């Protein structure tokens, strides 16, 4: 037998029997029910009557354990993260807007929950620009609105653009040929007195690059360092004395810009 009874301040509705539901009807038509397993079912729920917060809310797709407002959707349908007054369609505000390398403001992670494994991260502001990690091997590319990609920082430390040197070298041609310091140089070739070749670690796109050379005269004021045969992977250069004869110099500099 089904009963409705009051015990103290509680009102108990009880459906006797196994797998029996509590049903709510209006004019003989079922509007809601509570199953024997506790599931509440209704034909409609008036959401305007729902107020207050639902602590530790979880559903199949959402798990909210926040203890402060994390996401705001305002009356203009703008979404704010860490801000309750988003001015953009999506605004990341507050201290989290400028993150750190391990906790960037925006992150696409390679594995869930691992702060150090993201493949893309923006942790500073760059108005009008895009900073992207193309993939693990291609380093970081910097794009601007009109030109597109203008600069790429490779994983081996090269900065690829038309405004960064593709190659530079400080060469000592006396004694055993020596690269004092350099960038994108795999080796130097000693072709004879005053005759050298720079071999690039990574080839350039073509031979229309722009080399600039300089030396610091040691014994003869007329010394001249000049670029010679160019290839995509190397460039020959010669140092001559004031009489035009090849001459070894200890202070020779080569810089190359190009594609």
């Amino acid at each position, binding site marked *: 037998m089904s009963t409705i009874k009051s015990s103290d301040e509680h009102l108990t509705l009880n459906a006797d029997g196994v797998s029996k539901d509590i049903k709510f009807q209006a004019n003989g038509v079922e509007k809601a029910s509570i199953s024997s397993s506790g599931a509440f079912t209704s034909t409609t729920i008036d959401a305007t009557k729902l107020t207050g917060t639902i602590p530790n809310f979880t559903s199949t797709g959402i798990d909210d354990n926040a203890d402060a407002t994390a996401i705001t959707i305002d009356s203009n349908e703008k979404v704010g993260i860490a801000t309750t007054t988003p001015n953009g369609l999506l605004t990341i505000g507050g201290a989290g807007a400028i993150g750190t390398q391990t906790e960037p403001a925006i992150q696409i992670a390679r594995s869930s929950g691992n702060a150090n494994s993201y493949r893309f991260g923006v942790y500073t502001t760059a108005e009008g620009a895009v900073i992207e990690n193309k993939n693990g091997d291609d380093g970081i590319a910097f794009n601007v609105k009109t030109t597109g990609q203008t600069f790429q920082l490779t994983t*081996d430390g090269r900065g690829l653009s038309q405004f960064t040197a593709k190659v530079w070298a400080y060469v000592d041609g*006396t*004694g*055993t*040929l*020596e*690269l004092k310091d*350099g*960038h994108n*140089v*795999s*080796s*130097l*070739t*000693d*072709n*004879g*007195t005053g*005759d050298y070749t720079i*071999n690039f*670690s*990574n*080839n*350039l*796109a073509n031979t229309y690059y722009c080399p600039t050379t300089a030396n610091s005269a040691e014994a003869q004021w007329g010394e001249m360092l000049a670029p010679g045969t160019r290839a*995509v*992977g*190397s460039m020959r250069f*010669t140092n001559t004395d004031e009489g035009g004869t090849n001459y*070894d110099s200890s202070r020779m500099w080569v810089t190359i810009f190009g594609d």
Partner: protein
Amino acid sequence: MKIIYPSTNDDGEAILGQLIPAPKFLAQLEGTDEEKLIHIANKDLPTGTKYEITDVDLSDRTFRNAWTYTAGSDEKTSADLSAEDLAKYNMKENL
């Protein structure tokens, strides 16, 4: 250590060529010192070039243009780079 090999000067005369590895590039390679130099020879010398790896002191350049290459007992021959290395160095083909 350095790589020596037969080369020619601007006048087409035979001369000793020396290939000196760049320290930074050398440091990023893996393997023994000899393996690293072999890799550089494969990269920066035309395929099939005879060469030797040596640590002989050649700093006295008094008669530099008269030096010529003579094959020694440990002569090697430069080989092709792998397709993976070609891509890594932005090279379309071996030298």
